[in-house]
């Protein structure tokens, strides 16, 4: 479990330094793989709700989301480079500080340490790095990446709890993520002219 969480942290931080959109999407896909692996640590789901959650993590987050966005960008022949955060020492230091602050926060909540501390630290780091991306980038793709990282952070945090949502609610939550990603795709398809990076005067 700790190994998976550390891998999740590496997948979170790595794409911040490699400024291509393919790396960002690969990062999202790997986050999905690791979320699935963390979920399966409990064993195979025995309820319908658990099965829907597995499909949410494995099919939607790992496969569909990155693949769908990748196809749109490929068709547009989008330039290879895409900064997730500004490529400078200040941003990288800030990202490092946020990861450090996440561990500090988790240490305060669970002073006894252990897997729970690492789990909370990884979820908090994912959330804060998602906000860092949203706060520093204004291109639609980078902002989408930030929002999807926040979605994954929430999923990781929820995996720390033993309870499952009732089936209709789990279906609803998964459907909302799917519809949101489809809406994101609509804006990405509109291209840079369709979604101005800065508000109009």
């Amino acid at each position, binding site marked *: 479990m700790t190994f998976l969480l550390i891998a999740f942290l590496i997948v979170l931080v790595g794409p911040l330094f490699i400024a291509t959109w393919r790396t960002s999407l690969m990062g999202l896909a790997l986050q999905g793989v690791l979320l699935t692996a963390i979920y399966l640590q409990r064993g195979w789901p025995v309820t319908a709700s658990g099965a829907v959650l597995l499909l949410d993590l494995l099919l939607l987050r790992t496969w569909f989301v990155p693949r769908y966005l990748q196809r749109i960008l490929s068709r547009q022949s989008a330039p290879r480079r895409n900064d997730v955060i500004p490529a400078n020492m200040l941003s990288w230091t800030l990202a490092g500080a946020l990861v450090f602050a996440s561990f500090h926060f988790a240490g305060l909540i669970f002073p006894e340490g252990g897997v729970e501390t690492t789990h909370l630290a990884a979820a908090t780091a994912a959330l804060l790095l998602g906000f860092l991306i949203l706060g520093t980038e204004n291109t*639609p793709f980078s902002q989408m990446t930030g929002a999807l990282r926040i979605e994954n952070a929430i999923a990781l945090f929820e995996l720390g709890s033993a309870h499952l949502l009732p089936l209709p*609610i789990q279906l609803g939550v998964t459907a909302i993520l799917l519809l949101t990603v489809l*809406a994101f795709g609509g804006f990405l398809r509109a291209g840079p002219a369709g*979604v101005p990076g800065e*508000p*109009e005067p």
Partner: protein
Amino acid sequence: MMNLLAAFFPAAGATVAGVKRVRPRIVSMLLAIAAVDAALAAWFALGTPASAVVVFGGGYFVADATSRLFLLVASLVFLGIATYLWTRVKDTPALREGLERMVGFSLAFVSAANLAILSHHAIAGWIFLELTTLAAVQLIQYHPSPARVGAAWRYLLFSSVGLGLVLLGFACLARGMEASGQAHVGFFLDELAEAARQPPELWRRIGLVLILLGYGTKLGLAPMYTWLPETYHAAPPAVTALLGAVQFNVALVGVFRIVQIYRPTDQAVIGPELVALGLATMAVSVLGVIATRNYVKLIAYASLNHGGVIAIGLGIGGIAAYGVVLYAVANAFIKAILFLTAGKIEAHYRTEDARQVTALLKDMPYSGLFFMVGIFALLGFPPFGSFLGELIILSGLIGAGRFVVFAAFCSILTVTFIATGRTVFPMIWGAPGDRAHRAGQTLTSVLPKLVLLLALLAMGLYLPAPVNALFRQVAAGLGGL
């Protein structure tokens, strides 16, 4: 069963909106559905005792005072919006182009809003609120321009992040329930109420902070408010009215549910957070009101102010709770009247610049009158419901000994009044310009706004007993005296 019918009725319309044979009569269909929906909601709200609580739909929906009152408000506003669209299309047939898309998404929006209001499961309410957001994204981009697409994108982004925080907050509440040793973790409102009886602990506090912050995004509360003025300005007027008067109240019902459940045990978290968010929002809104000369943006910034007032009243509780309910309902009617009237004014003058619009009362007597009265209500003048609501919230602040908040509240309201008057009063009473020409307006086209205006007046002067009983019941649930 009738309760679910009221919620699902618009959804049935949404599914047939794209049918080819329906298209020529699409606006009439919208109007008919809105009228039936309003009649069902009125029957639903006033036909049962205010204190009655009925759980239905497998436990996922509830008919209590809060859901009945806000279902009525949403359906009345929607009827006003449908009539506005009907008259606009009648006056300008060119607007019929692509209208089935707007009608379909409007009906889907209202259906999801109704279901969110009726939800008895906190996360089900969240799902339906998200659905209103996704429908609204399509509505904002109706006849897309770069400004509209940009506004829709920022609206979607802020909403996704804000509602993500709400979901994270619910996950924290679940952790709290597990930490306090509860055998079952659930989000039905009665299960949450049961869990709230346990002593407060850290996860619950974190959860409440995140939920209020997230729902605050949908209410346009600082710090995540920047999407609101831009979206309200860029979207078509009917869509802005849907967002400001319907979706705002759907999100508010989400906040009401949380406050109703957690006020007795967690006022130390809820109170200060809501008061801080409310004051910060009022402060940023007044800056916007001072800076803008665009009358649509001005109303949008004033809407921020209203969100702030409601947050402060909710944070204080006690007698302010009744004022909050009165103010929230009045606020829905004011926003509907003002945004729809602003749409008519913009269509007539072809500008949103307040300096280009003069002698409104002479050029557009009905719209001028509605704009004037709407602005008076917006500024909290007597005898409207907003005045009474604001007065009760102010007395709540005094009663709670929150004198610093009271002083800040009054100062901001005074500056807002002056800044709004400086921009808007010349529009209404200014000398006629060179391009002025009188617009023909029929009484039928203003009838729904007249009904909303009468409701606004009734809230300040005399509320019929069954309606007042609903208001009191909702306020009592919020910790009102």
